[in-house]
Structures are given as structure tokens and as C-alpha cells.
């Protein structure tokens, strides 16, 4: 944490940690928030890092599932998850008191370069998950935070309270116009990039959205960091399942990312959708 940089050089080595479910609640349609007692991870994790969670106990769904840490509260970590497939369906069934294990903290999280005064966070849907801890950390460090949060509909605007609490300016967009601007969050982003004097854009969400945000930031001459999701077997850099094409060659999303400098990503390659 020296020099205000949350880069991987300073992060703690990952470990296998046995964790207990403290609470697990549905917070929007198809979205849950699970709170885990995970003292080691809670202490070690930096914003933008993730954990590799073993949800199933038997082999049918063999692989771990990667999830960002949304927030830390004492010895507890919070994960926001979207119910998509078998693993997240199982996750939604886990109740307080049940045990699981995770490998973490993993990955290279958000960089907070020294000297920045104003950051824009652009989140689409569950993209809010890894931005929660970042927003809190930025606010703690006195960086002004503007948040643009998008979702299909008001009910699906994730982590509103957190962002409202820490953001100097907070804008929303919904596809159906039920809250904030009608349309995609990229519209809001464009306006904010024009309106505000920004030092940095952080974004997470569907890749088509991230691509547009990255381009908008580049046009506005503002550096941009994006958090990518990739299929991951190991999560610790050995299997090479999660590679991302960058100007510096193929990078592993699990250790070199998941957060990348948007300028290094090769957006024209089919591997980035």
C-alpha cells in the first residue's frame, strides 16, 4: 500500500482459506449478495482483486468460480453474484453456517496512481461488483468519485447505496428509463467525460460496454482501466486458459489482470468481444 498503489507487487500471496457463509440474500432478480467470514482474505484483499470459490463439494461441477470482492467489512467479505449457470445456482442455495473454501486474494486489481483528484467509475449491471471496494478506497484517499451505473431496469441497479454514499456525483441509466437516463450507461459516460475534469476512468461491465467506454475515455484523453472476465481454471497463472491479447503480448487475466490498462488491450481481436 506504499505510494498509494494497489498493484500486484504489493499484494499478499494467495492462500486456500476455509470460509463460512454469514448471510446470503437475493438483492435483485437473479442477483445475490453473499457475505463470507474470511478473515485472511478480508485483510489481504485490494480493490479489484477476486477470489476463486469452490461452490460444489463433489466433482460434477469441477471448477472453482471466480468472483470479485465487492466490499470488506471487518473479517467479512461480500460478493455480489448473478445467477447464470449451475455454479451460481448452487451458490444461491448456500445458507448461513455452511462452509466452502476459496483461493485468494487473486489478481492484479485497480491501480490508484498517486496524484489523481477525480475518478469516474462506469459500471454496467454486475460490473458494479468490483467497483464497490474501489469507490470506498478512493473516497478514503480523498479522490473525488463520480459514478455512472447502468442496468436494464431500476430494480437491477446494483450497489446504489454504496455508490450514493461515497460518490460526489452519481448518475444512473436504465434501458427502460425507470431510473435516471433512458438507454445505456455509455450515454451517461459520454456526458460525464464532457462535463467533468477527470483524471481516470475505471470500468467494469459487459465487454461491448467496456469497449465503448474505453474508446470514449481515449477520445477524451483520459486513462482508463477495465476489469475483464475470462474463463478461468486455475486462477493462479498456471493453466493459460484466461489469456488476453495485449500490446505487450498475451497476458493472463487471473494474475496480470483482471484489471488492464485499456490502452494495452487489443480491442480489434476476436478474443475481446
Amino acid at each position, binding site marked *: 500500500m506504499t505510494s498509494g498503489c494497489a498493484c500486484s507487487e504489493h499484494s499478499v500471496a494467495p492462500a486456500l482459506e476455509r470460509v463460512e457463509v454469514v448471510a446470503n440474500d437475493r438483492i435483485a432478480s437473479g442477483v445475490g449478495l453473499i457475505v463470507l467470514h474470511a478473515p485472511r482474505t478480508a485483510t489481504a484483499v485490494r480493490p479489484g482483486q477476486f477470489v476463486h470459490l469452490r461452490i460444489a463439494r463433489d466433482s460434477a461441477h469441477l471448477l472453482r468460480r471466480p468472483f470479485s470482492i465487492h466490499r470488506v467489512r471487518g473479517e467479512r467479505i461480500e460478493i455480489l453474484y448473478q445467477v447464470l449457470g449451475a455454479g451460481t445456482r448452487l451458490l444461491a442455495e448456500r445458507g448461513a453456517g455452511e462452509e466452502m473454501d476459496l483461493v485468494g486474494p487473486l489478481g492484479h486489481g485497480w491501480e490508484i496512481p498517486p496524484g489523481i483528484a477525480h475518478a469516474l467509475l462506469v459500471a454496467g449491471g454486475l460490473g458494479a461488483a468490483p467497483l464497490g471496494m474501489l469507490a470506498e478506497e478512493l473516497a478514503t484517499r480523498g479522490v473525488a468519485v463520480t459514478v455512472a451505473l447502468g442496468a436494464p431496469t431500476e430494480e437491477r441497479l446494483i450497489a446504489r447505496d454504496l455508490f450514493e454514499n461515497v460518490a460526489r456525483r452519481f448518475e444512473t441509466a436504465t434501458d427502460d428509463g425507470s431510473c435516471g437516463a433512458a438507454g445505456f450507461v455509455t450515454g451517461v459516460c459520454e456526458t460525464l467525460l464532457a462535463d467533468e475534469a477527470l483524471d481516470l476512468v475505471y470500468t467494469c461491465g459487459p465487454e461491448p460496454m467496456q469497449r465503448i467506454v474505453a474508446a470514449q475515455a481515449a477520445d477524451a484523453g483520459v486513462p482508463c482501466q477495465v476489469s475483464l472476465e475470462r474463463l478461468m481454471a486455475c486462477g493462479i497463472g*498456471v*493453466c493459460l486458459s484466461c489469456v488476453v491479447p495485449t500490446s505487450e503480448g498475451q497476458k493472463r487475466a487471473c494474475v496480470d489482470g483482471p484489471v488492464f490498462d485499456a490502452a494495452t488491450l487489443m480491442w480489434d481481436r476476436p478474443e475481446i468481444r
Partner: protein
Amino acid sequence: MSGSVTQTVDMSVKLGSLTLRSPVLTASGTFASGREFSDFLDLERLGGLVTKGVSLEPWEGNPTPRIAETPSGMLNSIGLQNPGVEAFCEKDLAYLADVDVPVIVNVSGHTVAEYVRVIERLESEPRVDGYEVNISCPNVDSGGMAFGTACAPAEEVTRACRAATRRPLIVKLSPNVTDVAEIARAVAGAGADAVSLINTLLGMAIDTATFRPKLARVVGGLSGPAIKPVALRMVWQVAGAVSVPVIGMGGIMDAEDAAEFMLAGASAISIGTANFIDPTTAMRVTDGLVEFCRERGIGRVSELTGALRT
């Protein structure tokens, strides 16, 4: 299960001229060169560390997506992405210089000559204890599995590699064949000191939402518990067919699985996919095998090899 028996268990096994402190190795491509696992386990307690496949030049590997989960298994089409033998020596072997564990380098090539040149380059590296020649990777277009699915090319690669080194030479067999024992005999005849098996089974998965294959390369290699029955059967067949030692792998998740492979005839076993699921697996299996032997009053783990009662 007489919990009171507490004699020590001799965990060492012989693999040709190599004596390993334990029968528990790591499977190529699932352990990189060990560094990432040093956070989770003691590398020096491994019987041996089998590296990711190394080729002469850097290989880019295949496009993503490269993996898919399947029932009790996974598919991968990594395609042997690696920075080439030169970078391997500079980085991986340098890291391993200070780690006291036998290092077996998994060798890949598009042509026989490439296999040989990788070995030639490594011959001068003192940190290398042996080679595993991968003639069974289903994820590269030329070379790879093509060498491993017929006797003649398998023999040819083995003979050429044998000529290039006096170090222990292991040949890794493909399960995607009609008669694995025949290939094993061929490579043993051509000078392999040991055979390892199985590599992955060629498989495929389809995303019914998009009508697309789940892997960009369409097909890939199936690993994990799903393949264990096939792997065990092949180890049993090969152990009955050749006199060189057999290294068994395929879906080993715990010490019981490892014991199954040894009973079927393996002298040592490798942990593959399980490293991704639980990065401490190799230690769990090592400790578990000690316990397994102790409970049964077995003094040397090598007594398990081929002890199947049929």
C-alpha cells in the same frame, strides 16, 4: 483401519535410474514450473515436478475460449502456449535452481527434429533431471498427438530423443488409440525408460445458446475425474505389457485415486486438473498415501504397484 499402527512408510519409488522421494508428481501443463504453487505447498516434498510443455520456439497457443467445464471434468485447448526453450531456461530453470526437487521437462515439437533440438538445448542445463516427451497433445495441429497414435512415429520420436540424451526419458502416451499397449511396447522398445499416461481424451462441448463449440478450436482434451476409469484401464493394460515403469494419471483427486493407479500397476502418479481445484492436492495425496499404507501395515509405498488382486 487400525489407527494405532504408527510405523513409518518408505515413500521412495524408483523410476528407472531416478529414485524419487515420493510417487507423487505433477502433471505437465497443470503446474507451470511450480513457482505459483509455492504459496500453497512445499515443492521439495514432491516426488518430481513435471513442467509445462516446452518447445523450441515460442508457441502462441490456441484462440480463446480455451476451456470448458464438463460433467466431472474439463476440456482444454491451450495448445501448448509457451515461451520456448530459451526463455524456459532463463526463467523457469533459474527459479528452480534453488528448489530441491527432481525436474522433468515436458518436451513438445512439431517435428522429430524439434523434439531433439529442445532436448539438445536442455542437455547443458544441470537443473534438468529427465524428460517427458509429449507425443499425445490433442491441441496442436502438427506434431503432438499425431506422433502418439501410431507405433511407427511414436518409435521414431522416441529413438531420436533417446539418441540425444542419457538422462531418464519418459514418453507420454495418448489415450486416443485403439491399442495403447502396442504403442507402449513400441516406445519401450525404442528406448524409453518409462511411460506416462494418460494425456487427455479428445472431446468437445457445444453451447446450445449460441450453437457454437465451447472451445474456439472446437475440440480439446478432456481431463479430470470423468476420465479416471479410462486412465486406470490403460495403466493396467500398459503395466501388463511393458517392463519399464509406468507413471499413471487421469482424474486423481485424492489418495484413494492415487492408490487405485498404483494398484493397477503405476510406479508413480501425477496430479493434473486437481491442482486447479485444490492447489494443495499434491500434499494431500502425499500425506494420504502415507496414511493409506500405514493403516494397512504397508511399509513401502512401492508395494502398492501392481498389487491388484484379480
